[in-house]
């Protein structure tokens, strides 16, 4: 009925961006601000830079159209309104197999998202914080999942290298913690190798002793 309303956002570095109402509403924070009456002038976003806001708007634009079309094919299952954004589809919800059109749409969206989140660390973390501040659930999940994928399966040393974390333990402290708290230091591949070896009884006596010592806290 009403013509598409346009809102103006201003970033911390002074740049302004115009977006449609439907795009703006993807952000819960902006939506609340508009509903509270702050939409007439510029909407200031002091926590977001223009570089990041560009990315955010790209996301919002893509997901407005998806929101609209998914409303039509909704299978009555409202996405969790609770804080379940940490969960990634753990409990398989039985679904009717999608028809070719919907399948293609989902595929396309997945590909778009993979390209979208293929960004360097600085941008990723800024995006994460922006998504949090602007309360855009889908973007927050995507960024958090990307960050998690950069940690998953790595040894502590690899993680430190990826994120430039400085190891400030003394060697004794480190050894102590590693044995007691870190459960064990093997990567999944190393573990699989060990498991196979044990099954085939391929350990040398020294290797066996080494492993037994390292897992002493658990074995005793």
């Amino acid at each position, binding site marked *: 009925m009403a013509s598409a309303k346009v809102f103006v956002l201003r970033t*911390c570095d002074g740049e302004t961006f115009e977006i449609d109402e439907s795009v703006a509403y993807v952000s819960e924070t902006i939506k609340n601000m508009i509903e509270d009456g702050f939409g007439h002038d510029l909407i*200031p976003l*002091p926590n977001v830079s223009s570089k990041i806001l560009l990315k955010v708007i790209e996301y919002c634009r893509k997901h407005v159209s998806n929101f609209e079309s998914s409303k039509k094919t909704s*299978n*009555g*299952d409202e996405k969790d309104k*609770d804080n379940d*954004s*940490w969960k*990634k589809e753990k*409990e398989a*919800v*039985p*679904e*009717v*197999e999608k*028809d070719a059109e919907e399948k293609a749409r989902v595929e396309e969206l997945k590909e778009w998202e993979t390209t979208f989140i293929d960004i360097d*660390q*600085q941008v990723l*973390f800024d995006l*994460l*914080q922006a998504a*949090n501040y602007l309360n855009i659930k889908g973007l*927050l999940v995507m960024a*958090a*999942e990307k*960050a*998690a994928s950069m*940690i*998953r*399966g*790595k040894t*502590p040393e690899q*993680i*430190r290298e990826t*994120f*430039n*974390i*400085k*190891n*400030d*333990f003394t060697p004794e402290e*480190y050894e102590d*913690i*590693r044995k007691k*708290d*870190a*459960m*064990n*230091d*093997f990567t999944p591949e190393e*573990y699989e190798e060990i*498991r196979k070896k*044990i*099954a085939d009884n391929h350990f040398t006596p020294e290797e066996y002793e080494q492993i037994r010592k390292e897992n002493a*806290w*658990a*074995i005793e």
Partner: protein
Amino acid sequence: MQTKRKLTVYMIIDNWMEMASSSTLDMLSNLPESMLNNILSRLSLRDMVRTTVLSTKWRYKWTSVPHLIFDDEYLPVYFGPFGHDKLVKIVNHVLLLHRGPVLTFEISSSQLRTCSEINSWILYLSFNSVKEFKLHISKSERHIVPPCLFSFGHLIQLILIGCIIVPPTTFKGFSYLKNLSLKKVTLSNASLECLLSSCPWLERLTLIDIDGPTHVEICNPNLKYLFFDDKSIGISLKDLRLLVYANLHAINVAHPDQQGTCNFTSILGSMLNIQKLVMKGWFLESLAIGDVPRRLPSTYDHLKSISFPLNMEDVKQILVAVCLLNSSPNLQELEILLCRNREYAIVPVMDLQEAKDQLECTFNKLRVVNMSKLFGIETELVLIKFILANSPVLETMSISPAKKGIELTLFKELLQFKRASPRAKIVYLDGSDPR
């Protein structure tokens, strides 16, 4: 006034950006706790706890993540007879170090046996406003769930596998429970009834292999997903108007105030929002009691997928199937698992013809059909012919024979049938296909 305010804001931001740039090297460590928890909770428990050695700052970052999941994927699978003890030590260790609320606690490691430590964990959690709880015992006899589990007042999801459930007499129900899943559990008729009737917000219910009850009544008004698999229990379904998905393998028993009318109408008639319906075992047969109408008074407009077993020599069952198909104008997927009962070897042809004539639908949205265990009898062919001739958008029809030896003649005949859809493919699945 405006200008002054603007200046102050920009000054603060400049400052903030300067601070930020000095620590841009290690951004992960400086994330606020809630965001870091969001990231860490997506990792396996092992990866999560491993972050403790990254640096002094990271020592206890993992201990405030509110989701704890111990299972074979997340926890290294310890081998040998010490597996259970190691697991118990790890859980104790994690719980002892943990601080803050525990919102999710799931333990389903294949190493876990029933033991008293499980009860200590549940007691500890009962002070913790747990929202999602899962306990899976598969390696030993069933675990008797302690009474303190029933005091988890904030529970939204409860999954119990391999347990014995005895709610205390003071149990008033889980008022926020939305998802209940019980598998291989032992409990009394009264306990199950108490559990079900005290959860008004229940949306998902899974009951598989339940020892004890002989009859279950399911009438939770908000139920959307129902998965029931225990062929020795009679179930009665009432008023499940919001039900979207149903998978039923049970003996169907009509609700006491629905006796007299057709079973089908009274049991399935109110599920107008259903999207996927799967029936197994004797369920369809038990719907055939009473006068089966040609179609239901209101149609299942959202029903997209149906799967059911069918004895093509039982007229009553055919009538139920026909009624179901007639009432589902928007059906997209159809699966029929044919079966045969020797008792009905001779069926009057007139009855079958009449039954076939009752089929009056055009399958305007039907895309996929799967018919398995064909015997090659006339009624089956009549049905397939009808479907092929009335499905303008059909993409695939998959057929598999009940036994070897009937393939060729059957297939030849099928290929001759007229197809309404130019794209329709008939796929022949080998009888030895694992299905």
